[in-house]
């Protein structure tokens, strides 16, 4: 078995990280912990971009995309946590199940 890391190794690590993040997102009731799952998924996507930048033919572009992904993640987490705080103020709980106003 070849232990030297190649593109496939990084992609597999990233796939595992994505699956763990997805698990957190769909099973957690607490909104902040669900957001942590989203952050794991974003990190795994970024790892893919950088791995392709290293082994692929795109040059530095993957890393530039990675920087933009981090910025979008920062904006996302800022707005998402503000929504969690608004939910908490209205329902006195950080649980996502409480957001049922639009349920038919």
């Amino acid at each position: 078995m070849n232990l030297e890391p190649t593109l496939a190794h990084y992609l597999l690590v990233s796939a595992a990280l994505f699956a763990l993040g997805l698990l957190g997102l769909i099973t957690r009731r607490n909104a902040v912990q669900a957001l942590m799952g989203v952050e794991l998924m974003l990190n795994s996507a970024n790892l893919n971009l950088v791995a392709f930048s290293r082994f692929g033919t795109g040059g530095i572009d993957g890393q530039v995309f990675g920087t933009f992904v981090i910025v979008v993640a920062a904006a996302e987490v800022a707005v998402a946590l503000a929504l969690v705080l608004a939910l908490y103020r209205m329902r006195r709980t950080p649980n996502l199940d409480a957001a049922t106003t639009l349920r038919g």
Partner: protein
Amino acid sequence: MTASAVVFWVLTLIVLASAAVVVLSRSLINSAFALLATFSGVAGFYVLLGADFLAAVQFLVYVGGILILLVFGVMLTHRIQDLDLRAEARQLVPGLFVAAGVFILLAAVATRTPWAIGAGRLPSATTAEIGRAFLGKYLLPFEAASILLLVALIGAALIVRKREDA
């Protein structure tokens, strides 16, 4: 096995183990601290892949910024008597099946696709090169990022503010 291969496998262990703690821990604070290890491990991967600037960004923004904001989110949404900071999980078994399915799918794609692997970009200092990309080829996304941050700042401040008029 070279030193970089050893580092790769140690980082893999750290990242996946701490990500599992983030997802499965019943305590929100434990999740937040495990997330610190995950983010740091991913920064280590970036260094190994020759992305030194992105590794620094990962530390500055994820560890120094986003994680702080998440911890604030924990502290701001729990009452004084709510001492244990417990977080419940729902439908863990179906969730495990879905996550395992997604992992198998992604792993199959990752290993079976004939990726266009070229000479690659060997690790070297990247900051100046990224600066040239920001100010040349990616100027519009660079300026759009500042607008995005402005919108996020104003929007989040507006949502959080106590509204007397609404």
